[in-house]
């Protein structure tokens, strides 16, 4: 499956990349919001994983963009920090499917990805 990952923290994006590649997915990485939206149209992902707070465009904008763009509904997971519950709620209203709070376990992320993609 093709997954787009948008995350500005290098250690996080690298770790997610390693894990999801090991799980057999094809990845497209973006380190800021604008990049994520630019690459989304060409890459046509089957799933999007995005952080909420990123330079140039927030995760919420990316979710709106994704929902407007696509022809079919793809699962979206958001990465949030502690204390961002209201932003998470906002994200769900815009169409996110699941969220994971930092710090998190990479294995858990992998499990959630698998679950959402199998649905």
């Amino acid at each position: 499956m093709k997954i787009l990952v948008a995350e500005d923290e290098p250690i996080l994006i690298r770790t997610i990349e390693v894990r999801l590649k090991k799980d057999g997915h094809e990845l497209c990485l973006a380190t800021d919001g604008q990049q994520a939206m630019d690459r989304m149209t060409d890459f046509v992902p089957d799933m999007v994983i995005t952080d909420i707070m990123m330079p140039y465009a927030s995760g919420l904008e990316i979710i709106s963009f994704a929902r407007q763009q696509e022809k079919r509904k793809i699962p979206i997971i958001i990465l949030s920090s502690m204390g961002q519950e209201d932003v998470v709620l906002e994200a769900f209203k815009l169409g996110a499917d699941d969220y994971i709070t930092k710090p998190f376990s990479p294995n858990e992320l992998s499990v959630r990805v698998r679950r959402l993609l199998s649905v």
Partner: protein
Amino acid sequence: MLQLPLHVSTLVPNPHYLLLAMAVVVGTLSLIIAFMLIYLLWKNQQGRKQKEWQQQLAVALQRAIYFETPENSPPVIPLTFRTIRLLKKPAFRQLMIDELLQAKKAFTGTAADNLVTLFHQLRLDELSLQKLRSRKWHLKARGIQELAVMHQQQHTKRIYRLTNAHHELVRMEAQSAIVQLHGFEGLRFLDIVDHPISEWQQIKLLRLLSRTPGALPENTDRWLSSPNDSVVIFALKLVAEHQQQLLHGQVATCLDHPHPLVRLQAVRCLKDIYTDDTSAVLEKAYDAQTLACKLAILETLGHIGSENNCIFLSQQLVHPDNSLKLAAARALVKTGGKGLQCLQEYPQAYMYPLNEIIQQAKTEHTV
């Protein structure tokens, strides 16, 4: 840029001295320029080296994060020869510590445990301890931070001694470290701390505590009567966050505390631990309070109040301060049917400024 008046005078010293001074200045200038250029070259070179090192470290870290301990043998995370060789350089070791810290903050579970294992394996904890023992405050603080993030509980005693240190940043790091390592148990330092705890530090501590399991310790009520005002404020925040209704009585007595910020925090706290008596208590304490406190009381009454408070709230509509009028109107709107009725029936409800105030309060509520 300064340009001095050009003036000729016999009282000004000998031109030779001036020329000498000018030569010194020009010399210094040239030295600085040369230094800057060399420094930039060096910095760019360092930058490149850092990037290379970070690549190496990234690989090592990923290996650590996804390492699976083999059965019946102690965990030893494998590293490339290159990495081991680079570890001989102190700069690389510090970079390794920084990257480990960043990674440890990002993950939980097996990944996090492995990172701590690697920290030990490479004996980087010794480096952190060295920093802790240093006399310079920024090294001490850095050492404390490293040991705390990497779960080095064995150094608790040393760190605990620093929770009341003289230097503010060392103190803050030590307090944060103890809470990181021991959760609510670590809050013992609230008994001994003389210096005030800043708002920032309180936010930080609350954040760290929200990540740890456990309950508020027994002596929370003692902190509510601490001589250190900031400790009282912090305790009130803890009580609110953990909904300790049992302490309602003591929190209510804080409404008489000499410090206005303590009283304000007490009002906010009562909002989260309210009982049937709370609104009466707040109404009674209202008149003696500062403006900020009064606003907080009105807001709280809107949140927890009922029909019984409508009369009191209506009385506040006549107060000269408009922000109080608005707060009272908002509170009345929030209490529902009877509140709205009170507003409508209020004698000056159709005159400026009350008409606009009430209109805004109503609109806000529906949006």
